[in-house]
Structures are given as C-alpha cells and as structure tokens.
C-alpha cells in the first residue's frame, strides 16, 4: 500500500503571468512526481499541488527563490488519510 508520510499539499498563489509560467515549468519536472490538484492557469486561481516528502525542500526552495507565495494547506497527507480510514472503520462498526 502506498504511503504518503510527510507529503504536503501547498496552496500556491501566483501574482503575475511570469510566475504562472514558472509554475508550469515546475509542473514539467517529472522527477518531482508532483500532483497538481489545481493547475496553474491564471493569477486569480490558486494552485494546489501535492508534493511528495522527497521533493518538498526542492519545491519550497523553487517557490521562495522566485518570490512565489505559498502556504501549507495539508501538513501531512498520511495523517489525514489515517483519520479518514479510522472514521470509515468507526462508521462501519
């Protein structure tokens, strides 16, 4: 079973077309295995991206060095999954 321990979901807010372009470049970096829940399209729409733990440092460094605002929306994906699973077991009982 795949685990998501330490994975985070970042909510990224681009403030210019240049930053949107940078986010699209980030999207193309396949080795980071990013999963864009909301894709970079226009500045008015937030971008949500699921970042595996192994790539967190690289992604945050990329965003910070380019002055792109973000916040951590889900701190640990696995913790949420565990809660969800527990809730399902409970309701089944």
């Amino acid at each position, binding site marked *: 079973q*795949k685990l998501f321990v330490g994975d985070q979901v970042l909510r990224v807010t681009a403030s210019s077309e240049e930053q949107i372009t940078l986010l699209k470049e980030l999207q193309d970096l*396949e080795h980071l295995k990013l*999963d864009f829940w*909301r*894709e970079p399209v226009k500045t008015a729409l937030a971008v949500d991206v699921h970042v595996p733990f192994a790539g967190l440092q690289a992604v945050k460094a990329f965003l910070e060095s380019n002055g792109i605002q973000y916040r951590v*929306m*889900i701190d640990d994906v696995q913790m949420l999954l565990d809660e969800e699973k527990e809730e*399902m077991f409970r309701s089944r009982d």
Partner: protein
Amino acid sequence: RDRNTNNFDYASYHTLDEIYSWMDSLEAEYPDLVTKIQIGSSFEGRPINVLKFSTGGSNRPAIWLDTGIHAREWITPATGIWSAKKIASDYGRDPSLTAILNTMDIFFEIVTNPDGYYFTHTSNRMWRKTRSINPGSSCVGVDPNRNWGAGFGGPGTSTNPCSETYLGSFEHSESEVKSIVDFILGHGNFKAMITIHSYSQMLMYPYGYTSTETPNQQELHTLAKSAVDALATLHGTKYSYGSMITTIYPASGTTADWGYLNGIKYSFTFELRDTGRYGFLLPAEQIIPTAQETWLALMKIMEHARDNPY
C-alpha cells in the same frame, strides 16, 4: 453490511462493493421506479452500472447524471448515493421531482470509474485516472475527463502517460468513457447531462476546449446562476460559474463538451464543495450538507430541462 437503503449510512464513505450492494437494495425497494442497467465493463472487468429512474413510457427524454469519474473525488459518489435515494424516496411526494419523472427518465452512474475507485480504497488514495495499461509506458491510466471526442488532444491535456491529465491514445479509448458514449448515442433522447466532480466549488457549461461561446451561452449562464443561487440558500456555500474555459481553465476532451457537441443542450459540470483546507479528503461529516446543497442546484437544472423541451 446494511440490508436496505434506509439503514445505509449516507454520512460516511463506502467501498465499491458496498455501493454496488446498495444499488441492488435500491432497485429491490423501488421496483416500479428503479432499474439497474449494466452499460459496459471497466478495464479490469468490473461492471459499469447505471441506475435508471423511470415511471414508464418508451425512450422518454432523459437526464444523465454521473459521479466519480475521477476516482479520488469520493465526495461525488457519496453525493450521488444520497441524491439517488432522494430521487427514489421523493417521487410521489415532491411535486416538482414527480413532474420531472412523469415526463422524463433519469439515468445515474454513481461510480463512473470503478477500477480507479477500488484502487483508491486499496492502494493509492490519491489515484485519479482509469487503470488501463499504456503500451510502451510503465505509467498506468488515462484521465477519463480528457478522453472524450470533443476537441480531443487540444489545450489542457497531456500526451505523457505519466501525467494526471493524460488524454489516452485515441478518443474514447477508455471503456469507462466509451460505454457512456455508446449508451447515450444509442438512446438518442438525452436532454441534460450533468457530470459531477470536486473540489473547486464551481458550476460550468461548455466550452472547455475553445474560448468560442456556445449558441446557448446566455441561457446556460442564466441557468447556472439560478442553480448556484439555489445551492447557496442552504449553507451559504459560494460557487463560481460560467463556461469551463473562463471559469477554471482550458480543458479538452471533457464530458460536458462532448455532451453539448452531441446535441445535449443542458450540459454542465459541477465541482463540489471544499473549503480548500482538505482537498479530496473532505471529512465525512460534510457529505450530507454537500449532497443537500447540490441537490438544490441539480433540481434547478432538471426542472429547466423539463420546462424547456427542445
């Protein structure tokens, strides 16, 4: 396992087996209204089931509803289950719904991507695509909402099988998509098609693959507004609305565009609620509020389709 649909826990998420078993129960409890139809099989051989709600007649004008095409969006089948039960239990009680069902049939596909849904319960909660094998690639699956014959291969799709928005090797390559296409075209009398996703709180109409407006732009826009206004009356949930390309992003090969291009004027796609805090892991306690508010919007669209035959 719940033995009838009244004991079913609508406020929690369920496995594929539980949902399929619930469908059988619903059919058994409402034999004069509900029929389960298998319209095809998934890549891994699971049945693709549709619930038909019909009070009689032959080949009546029909409404198509689907949930769960993106496997990880669990809130959508959960909303589908609640809504299907609502259709069955409100017939004969709610005058407006009764009037819809006295002139139209409703077809509801609750788990549109059964392989993906099963996979999210057993192996990868974040899985979104189908589970078909891509020749020449180690990456599995196609985004079934990029696989329809509507601007196939255009903007907003990926040709990389490892991408979450991989369009597939040809249009309707996914049996999960092809089964619906064949069923709807074979039926020939669908008047509304509503495909339900999550989690951006939006209601959208065509197009997604082009910025050209549809000839019915004004009517669809007004209808979308009335639907999101109705939705907001229950819990104040604010939806944005508009054409797919202006509201969210360019996306080609989508269900809603395919429906419209194939003569279904009232073709919409929902993005159900989320606060932006949980993503696809919407807490189970929010299932019923989500379903209840969505129902109000669905009714607006279905009533409009009933009252504006074409």
